[in-house]
């Protein structure tokens, strides 16, 4: 099916909604600004629903779903490494300690990105079948 007029219209709706939302935020201190922000947000939501509605019309991709929990776990672990450093910076005051802390945090994040997430996505990879 590929690109369609439906896609074009829903993308136009998305852009119009986002522009309205941003204009509303820019002038949020005024009553009109608040109204435009809410209206813009509603139009963005409408565009997302339009995307969802036309999604099944576009044919089946060469992908298999699955391991959703593991994907979220991978994202959580990758964020965890960063949060560990943020918290640790105020506990560890020495430079050496902070370098070690940084390396540990990066290691945790990389474990999530380079091990958990690829495992999750390759678990049911279509090329395996």
């Amino acid at each position: 099916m590929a690109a369609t007029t439906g896609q074009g219209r829903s993308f136009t709706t998305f852009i119009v909604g986002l522009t309205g939302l941003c204009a509303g935020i820019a002038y949020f201190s005024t009553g009109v600004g608040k109204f435009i922000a809410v209206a813009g947000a509603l139009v963005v939501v409408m565009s997302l629903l339009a995307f969802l509605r036309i999604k099944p019309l576009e044919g089946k991709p060469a992908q298999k779903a699955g391991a959703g929990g593991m994907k979220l776990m991978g994202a959580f672990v990758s964020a965890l490494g960063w949060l560990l450093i943020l918290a640790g910076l105020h506990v560890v005051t020495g430079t050496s300690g902070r370098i070690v802390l940084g390396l540990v945090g990066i290691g945790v994040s990389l474990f999530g990105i380079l091990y958990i997430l690829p495992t999750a996505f390759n678990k049911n990879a279509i090329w395996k079948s």
Partner: protein
Amino acid sequence: MEQSIMKMLRRRYLSACILAIGLMIGGLAYAQSSAPASAPAPAAPPPSASAAELKDAAGKAPATADLQKGDPGGTLTGTISDVPAADPKAGVTLPDVANMAGQNKIAINFTWTLVCGFLVMFMQAGFAMVEAGLCRVKNANHTYMMNFFVYGCGLLAYWLIGFAIQMGGAAGNGNLGGLQPLALEHTTTLFGKTWGLFGGSGMFLSGHTYDVGVMVIFLFQMVFMDTALTIVTGACAERWKFLTFAVSSVLMGAFTYPLFANWAWGGGWLAQMGTNIGLGKGYCDFAGSGVVHAVGGLTALAVALIIGPRIGKFNRDGSSNAIIGHDISAVLIGCFILAFGWFGFNPGSTLGASANGNLRIGSIAVNTMLAGCTGTFGALLYMWCLKGKPDASMSGNGLLAGLVAITAPSGFVSPVSSAIIGLIAGVLVCLSCAFIENVLKVDDPVGAISVHGANGLWGVLSVGLFADGTSNYGGSWNGVTGSVTGLFYGDASQLAAQLVGIATLLGFVFTFSFLLNLGLEFFVGHRVSAETEVAGLDLPEMGQLGYPEFVFREESTVFAQAPREFAVA
């Protein structure tokens, strides 16, 4: 005996000199302090020497008749006649000259920053050629169009909200006249310190941000942001639905990129680590190895994971097939265009050529050249020695890897360090491509994740190692007095700051991009249908073939003619 006499004479001579200098300084100080008290109050202020000199210079300025004869030597053009006088009757005064000097400084910096921004904008053409050249001919139109339309998507999103988030609180840059309208940074207070989170001024460039300096910084930062966006299109080429690409690019230009860029460049918390908790000069990223390239590369990895490999990339046993691009000439010309544009990227990041240590632009440009050169050597020699051929596409990627890696440290390191950084980047890009393909089983048709992601992180790290403490951009960086100095030159705390930056890129930017695009996978779906993918995206997605007169071969034939040893992996 003679030596001791000589020593004594030298000492006496030195003492006499010191005494004489002391007397001179003392006399001058006395004269200056006593002058106002002893001078009688004049009835009318006499013209100062400088005013008289200005009048004299005005008198000597070339007459109109002289100028009408032409000035082939350029000696008559650009004199005091060109300095505008506030009061034409009084002629040019000292304040007029001072104002002109100030405006000249800002004009030089505006021009420099704008021209460098134009160079960076032209890099989009380079990216388009590299990415399309590395893809198959059946997807050429689609790949070119993604690179074309990402410019519009990014620019619109950045104008709407991205710029305000990134630079809305970035007031205070003396190179561009202060940028005072950008004075709203939303902050939070943690452990007794104030940390910047995101800016707030500059949406739609309206109101008080309708300002000459703001326009210059908007243009320059916008083209940087667009560079980050276009990295993703390469990693997801040949299977990314055009609609999802457009929505994803808009969201990245509006939120993902500006948030991290604010933290690093817009006065946010990463930049404040130096002033707040004493970590070096805070997170230092001169021209964006982290802000631009790692953000682009990590987002590319996030989307490439979600979208999955192209049909035919991996076999059932997990081994990979090399899918050869259709136009190596486009790839290499694109690489040259990118290398040319990088002279806007790195030297332009001084945001000026006049004052505040900006004359370092020469060394920044040379560092950029050198790292690109050694990056090419690193990749080419790696491929030649280990795979038997000086592979063209990997040599191009080596050039880009060197350039990416030197982007963050270019303003802080010596030429020798630049060469080392580039060489490591050239080898790293080959190793990273192999790792991503063989171990992670992630399909990256152009090597964008390795070039921009892996080497972006290496560039950020290298600042913490190689910064030599000789730069002086107005005497401080990120509000901390002194020069940026890395571990090898005595400041380990700068390395710690860089590690926090890397952790933020991995832990925040990657995760944020991943979740955002996972949401788009639910609502829109990233990947085209299998039918479309096999047919090629040009006709189904774009309605037109990139090369309508080409004759396509069967896919299986193409794979068969791509020998295994050509694969980087």
